């Protein structure tokens, strides 16, 4: 979590359990790690209302294609609202791996 609690920031090896309420894609300008030049990227953003069981009002974002692909099937009709997701990041840069666990919520 960021110091003000506005963003969920993953740390390597630390699982974060989140519940998403909304999503959108934003275009952001970032500095390319290799060329050090600015470039535009699409960022998938989720609104998070629960983090590790505690209520929050935060955002979780990713530009990772592989992480996005793991969520993609849950985006239509906001099906992600019916699940908690535990995301565990390992490594950094090009070697980053993400394990995603979807846990259906019982009503």
């Amino acid at each position, binding site marked *: 979590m960021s110091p003000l609690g506005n963003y969920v920031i993953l740390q*390597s*090896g*630390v699982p974060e359990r989140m519940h998403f309420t909304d999503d959108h894609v934003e275009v952001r300008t970032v500095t390319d790690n290799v060329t050090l030049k600015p470039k535009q990227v699409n960022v998938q953003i989720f609104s998070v209302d629960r983090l590790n069981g505690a209520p929050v009002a935060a955002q979780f974002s990713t530009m990772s*294609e*592989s992480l*996005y*692909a*793991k*969520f*993609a*099937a*849950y985006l239509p009709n906001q*099906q992600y609202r*019916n699940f908690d997701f535990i995301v565990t990041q*390992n*490594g950094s840069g090009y*070697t980053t*791996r*993400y*394990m*995603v*666990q*979807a*846990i*259906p919520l019982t009503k």
Partner: protein
Amino acid sequence: MTRKNQQVETRMVSEYLVQQYSKFPAMQAVPLGAIDNALMATAGYQKAIGLSRPYRPEADAIVILPNYLLLIEAKVWNVVNGLAKLPLYKSLVPTTPELQQYMPRDILMELVVGTTNSNLQTMATQMGVSIKLYNPAWLQDVVNSMNVYWTADYQAERQRKLAMRKTLGVD
């Protein structure tokens, strides 16, 4: 030119899980196998898992069913590789620390493919693997585009575009 990373098999698994197993907890990209005891002792559990991550095989998905763990591998190309991996991955499940909380459970195996044939079915039966067909329209488009890539017409057009790019100095 930037080639877009389509994450075809990841998307395939994700959709298949939502379609078939949305009532059960499901994990994607699950590392398998034991962690070195000496590393665990010196680095601690969490760090040892992180350090070992690049060297451990990874299952596309595991579904936690009430009495079983279901091991899933999805393949669009090289489907026999996917089939061959599953029994090997199954052998690693009992020693995987991340899965200890779900054990003991019997382990089932599914290979998710866009197309199948009788030889694949025969091999799968022999290995105790169920073949599951998942072939949405977008996947068919991906497969078709790959097939077109190797045709003479497509290659001629590609060479023409590459030459034009070089002439115009565009990246």
